[in-house]
């Protein structure tokens, strides 16, 4: 029994909640009318989305000439935004898959939202490779589909084709993983639904979930397998994205350290975005006891590590350029730091190397306002990192006769704003219709599940043993993961529900009183 939890360790989720209260708190935002704050956020996001739709329509109808590109700088905002959004998505997969395999139970409060964030970020990212094309209506040419054009096929030597595979795989696996993880919660929503339409929709989506031990067993197996499938994607997707640059011959792009450097940067920016979103969510939704300061701290610690890798990569790039003795390489990097786009470079260094150093201080890590501000700065820095890599390498390349400057147009800025609109619109709709915290998983780490034996017989067992592990009490129903909720929970839950349905309205206001996480 390797998975005992020390009784000395603080529970991840406070003990002052019963299982029913937890269900109630997470499900309630979906069962009441949206709040004023939600409407304000939604209208702002939706306006940004409309602006984006306008800008993309103008660009697709008129031509890529509506962007500020020229013959020297062929990519700028488009691919910058693409890499930025793909990077944002990586933290979601890291939290949901890698932290699951490493049995980091603190992931349970944030994995659902982080995975949703991944999906929406990949949607935003996937837009750019399509709209950046001169003829986006022929984007399907990049897919190896059977055709009657003789030997016409895609170019498997091109990293853009690898990209197409990497991103579509990433989106499909993330979506399936997210959906499978949602099943038990969809069933909870179905069971709580009062209207017939809600019941029908959640019922259909929950795929006939019945909460039996057999269902849980299969669910756990599938979830583990999908976590295994998603794990390599965390590393592979951004490695392949980095090869869009690394396989070229342009000084500043042609760099072998790109794959690990990009993956670290992706996780770094992704955690910054998770923090931004989670800090808003815990305030707006009143989930301070679910998404605790400990979660915030853990994420900032990951950011110190990945930010360190990114900072090290910046230094390595300069060293390599100097040590190579190649004049073009040396020029590309001195132009980056001291050329006309030096301001972008120093924003990048400031936000990505200096800002995470604040997280060494516990006072800053535990101050939600400070972490929120710093996480936004990190996102700004990571956006500039991609801008610096793409634009400063392109604008002054081999021949001074082709050097040029780049400045974005309104259409490009509007498209970037529009993707933020798309992202937040999707996210706000998500927290309205789906449980933004995994109800089933959070119960397994709640103080309630640890302290109180879940049924009478298990309570007796646990009283004899000092080691407080539900797995030991449950007699190890299967061999993996700290994720299985207490087995008798399904019966427990239905009992709770009977009681709960009656006192639902009465209990609603009472459970926000204690904020034990802080």
């Amino acid at each position: 029994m390797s998975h005992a939890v020390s009784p000395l360790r603080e529970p991840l989720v406070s003990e002052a909640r019963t299982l029913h209260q937890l269900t109630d708190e997470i499900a309630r935002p979906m069962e009441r009318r949206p709040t004023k704050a939600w409407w304000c956020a939604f209208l702002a996001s939706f306006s940004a989305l409309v602006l984006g739709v306008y800008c993309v329509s103008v660009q697709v109808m008129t031509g890529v000439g509506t962007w500020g590109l020229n013959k020297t700088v062929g990519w700028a905002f488009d691919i910058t935004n693409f890499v930025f959004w793909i990077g944002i998505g990586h933290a979601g997969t890291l939290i949901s898959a890698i932290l699951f395999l490493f049995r980091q139970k603190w992931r349970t409060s944030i994995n659902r939202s982080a995975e949703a964030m991944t999906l929406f970020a990949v949607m935003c990212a996937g837009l750019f490779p399509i709209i950046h094309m001169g003829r986006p209506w022929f984007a399907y040419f990049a897919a190896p589909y059977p055709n009657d054009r003789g030997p016409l096929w895609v170019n498997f030597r091109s990293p853009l084709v690898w990209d197409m595979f990497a991103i579509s795989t990433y989106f499909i696996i993330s979506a399936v993983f997210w959906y499978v993880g949602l099943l038990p919660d969809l069933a909870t929503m179905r069971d709580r639904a009062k209207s017939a339409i809600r019941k029908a929709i959640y019922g259909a989506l929950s795929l006939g979930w019945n909460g039996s031990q057999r269902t849980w067993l299969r669910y756990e197996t599938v979830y583990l397998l999908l976590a295994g499938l998603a794990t390599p994607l965390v590393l592979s997707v951004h490695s392949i994205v980095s090869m869009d640059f690394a396989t070229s011959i342009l000084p500043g792009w042609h760099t072998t350290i790109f794959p690990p450097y990009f993956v670290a940067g992706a996780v770094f920016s992704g955690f910054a975005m998770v923090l931004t979103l989670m800090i808003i969510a815990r305030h707006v939704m009143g989930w301070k006891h679910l998404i605790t300061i400990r979660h915030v701290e853990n994420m900032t610690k990951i950011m110190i590590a990945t930010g360190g890798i990114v900072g090290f990569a910046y230094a390595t790039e300069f060293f390599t350029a100097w040590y190579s003795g190649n004049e073009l390489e040396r020029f590309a990097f001195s132009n980056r730091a001291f050329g006309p786009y030096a301001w972008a470079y120093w924003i990048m260094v400031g936000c990505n190397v200096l800002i995470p150093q604040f997280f060494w201080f516990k006072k800053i890590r535990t101050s939600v306002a400070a972490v929120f501000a710093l996480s936004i700065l990190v996102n700004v820095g990571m956006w500039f990192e991609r801008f610096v890599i793409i634009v400063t390498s392109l604008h002054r390349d081999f021949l001074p006769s082709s050097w040029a400057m780049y400045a974005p147009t309104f259409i490009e800025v509007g498209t970037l704003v529009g993707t933020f609109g798309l992202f937040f619109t999707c996210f706000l709709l998500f927290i309205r219709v789906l449980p933004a915290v995994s109800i089933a998983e959070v119960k397994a780490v709640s103080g309630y599940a640890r302290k109180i034996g879940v049924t009478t017989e298990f309570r007796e067992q646990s009283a004899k043993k000092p080691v407080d592990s539900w797995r030991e009490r449950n007699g190890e129903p299967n061999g993996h993961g700290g994720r299985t909720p207490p087995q008798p929970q399904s019966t427990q839950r239905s009992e709770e529900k009977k009681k709960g349905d009656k006192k639902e309205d009465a209990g609603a206001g009472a459970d926000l009183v204690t904020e034990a996480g802080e």
Partner: protein
Amino acid sequence: MTCLHCENAPCETVCPVLATVHSSDGLNQQVYNRCVGTRYCANNCPPKVRRFNWFEYDHGEPIERMVLNPDVVVRSRGVMEKCSLCVQRIQAGKADAKRAGRPVADGDIRTACQQSCPAGAIVFGDLNDPKSRVAALVKSGRNYRLFEDLNIGPVVSYLTKLRNPGSKEGV
């Protein structure tokens, strides 16, 4: 600068849809109706000689259309284009030679730039033919290629300026 028609062209490896490929003649060709316009080829081109059709350039006016070369297809917007070494003239020259029942002779095919250069500074021909004028110039000792350190194998090469260091002018 014009396209160097690299033997080992960096633009060709990065195109996802194989819209830029090498011909058996050694030309780096752009297939306009296959091009989706990712612009990666232009980004990866060291001399930056590719040009993108940023907009749909209207050629609807019948009078305006008369200035266009009827032998060259009009490229639509969103398509990359580049020097084709006057592939239409090469094809015509080959066809003429075939009709006459003889191999293409040196000087049969002249590119538009070659034809219009008053100084006669541009020479076009078959490098594989040791008797051709262009092959002789390449072997002349004045010939050099750009970006040799990148190993892209440009086919278009240049001749160095003739200098006379002994003269007073030093040019």
